[in-house]
């Protein structure tokens, strides 16, 4: 997994609430057996018309956002399906951080497994950063995971919370399966206990 430490970049504004994972990556693209290559279909139905032409109004089709690394989004981003194809598509496009007032649980977890930092901030902070995002290249945002601060283009700082373990894995690009397997003796012990307690399982 790609490490995440700090990031300074252009943020794309997506003020819509309840952006679901069907919007992020429509089901048509879930037939793949690979993780890579989904970036071109990120937000596919919002981004292209039926003939496959770009819809110029869509934010990521606008010149200043084509290389955006951050999304600033409305409430409850990533709701719906558990498809990890959603963070895979974001990552493949180049998005490394999503900022919102709230995220759906499964999507939130999936981001951390893929080197993407989801940042939860209060509504006023998201509104401030949304304003920056509308300015494109003229208002770059900095996200510092180590100090847990988002800095707006005018220098305003917004501290955010992040789970210590998730932060550790993200900052070091760690595979959590490897870490869990270090607990194999505890798993062995649990299974031995369960065998007598719940023999039908």
């Amino acid at each position, binding site marked *: 997994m790609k490490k995440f430490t700090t990031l300074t970049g252009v943020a794309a504004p997506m003020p819509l609430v309840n952006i679901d994972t069907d919007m992020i990556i*429509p089901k*048509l693209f*879930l037939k793949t057996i*690979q993780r890579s290559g989904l970036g071109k279909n990120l937000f596919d139905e919002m981004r292209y018309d039926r003939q496959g032409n770009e819809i110029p109004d869509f934010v990521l089709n606008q010149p200043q956002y084509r290389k955006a690394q951050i999304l600033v989004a409305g409430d*409850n981003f990533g709701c719906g399906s558990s498809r990890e194809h959603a963070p895979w598509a974001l990552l493949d496009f180049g998005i490394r951080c999503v900022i919102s007032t709230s995220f759906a*649980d499964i999507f939130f977890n999936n981001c951390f497994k893929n080197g993407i930092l989801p940042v939860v901030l209060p509504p006023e902070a998201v509104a401030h950063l949304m304003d920056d995002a509308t300015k494109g290249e003229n208002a770059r945002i900095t996200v510092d995971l180590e100090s847990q601060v988002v800095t707006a283009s005018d220098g305003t700082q917004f501290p955010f919370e992040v*789970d210590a373990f998730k932060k550790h894995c993200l900052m070091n690009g760690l595979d959590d399966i490897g870490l869990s397997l270090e607990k194999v003796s505890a798993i062995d012990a649990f299974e031995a206990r369960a065998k007598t307690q719940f023999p039908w*399982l």
Partner: protein
Amino acid sequence: MSGQTLFQKLWDAHVVHVEPDGQTLLYIDRHLVHEVTSPQAFEGLKLARRMPRRVDAAVAVPDHNVPTTDRSKGIADPIARLQVETLDANCAEFGIREFRMDDVRQGIVHVIGPEEGLTLPGMTVVCGDSHTATHGAFGALAHGIGTSEVEHVLATQTLIQKKSKNMKVEITGKLRPGVTAKDITLAVIGKTGTAGGTGYVIEYCGEAIRDLSMEGRMTVCNMAIEGGARAGLIAPDEKTFAYCMGRPHAPKGAAWEAALAWWKTLYTDEGAHFDKVVTIRGEDIEPVVTWGTSPEDVLPIGATVPHPEDFTGGKVGAAQRSLEYMGLTPGMKLTDITIDAVFIGSCTNGRIEDLRAAAAVLKGRKIAPGVRGMVVPGSGLVRAQAEAEGLAQIFLDAGFEWRMAGCSMCLAMNPDQLAPEERCASTSNRNFEGRQGYRGRTHLMSPAMAAAAAVTGHLTDVRELMGETV
């Protein structure tokens, strides 16, 4: 010491290891696997040269991509075919039990888990699918996971979790005639919103929940995720035990007695603490439908399409966008919305009781001219039972297509899709933009309500048709 909630009991029974900050390694008893969210997990295992820890805890089925018409020619779409073949190959390579496409037991993963007795009270159940919440109807702690977590469970038989908060949703009293489990679960989401359950495990309780069949309880828990909750729970009771008894993978004999003794302790103790409590009177729930593109856009069938200015904050713009997408005018009666298609099926409403409810409305009636109707049973066994009960014939006589089992038009990954701007009365779980087909329009409702809409050709209060059939 105050009592424990059901969630607390299930959690405590599965803790492998706890870090000082509360991060927990939670043991997983049952891992359900399907073709869409597993190939990258198996690939990851192989790349890291890891083996599945307990293949007997896993069971796989192809459901999202399978055709619901004639299967003798296999899957036409080569990409979908490769995905199903990849599941077959991975299961064969690692020795994971699989119900293949040509097995009568094949079906939607959340239908066959309970049907086969692979889902049991007290279990932890995961699947790379958000509707895994369904299995909570058995008093199992069940939730959807991403593909990285699928790989984690395969490799370690555990998940890294932090304990969720716990919400009680109580539905008191009796439901009125024509009101079903689907109306309960939609009404709850209408009240709490699609993010209201984020960070929570919901326990549904109250007389109206106890009165539901196991099928109805599965419908309620299935849509917990649509309210933002990763898991929904209902305490097991005699109905649960009766449903499980004798299922192919349920314990037998002394093992059954031992299991039953533990299952009977799985309830929330008197006075146990919940972080949030929502109470709805069963009598107040009406048959409902959705009007917009979020499952929280719920209204009683007698209502009118809302105005964007009825909302506040970011929901104003979302409502405006929804109305445009759905092609609806504020102020119009919901019952004036005409439909092009009816979909009866999905992990929410593809079980035998759902088909019975729809057939009860359709018996002796015809689908309205110009409306396309499709029934997709949740499993091959549900299909067989419906045929044996004569339900299939009722659907066929009414003018419905009678299909093979799968996810079908609930997410429209296979060829079962709406055309742009086609409007569907659907028993599925998501009315998101494009969910049932590019620019398709979905109204969520119960099987009985979908059947009523099929007969009249517009959204309809099923109670108006019930007098003649019940």
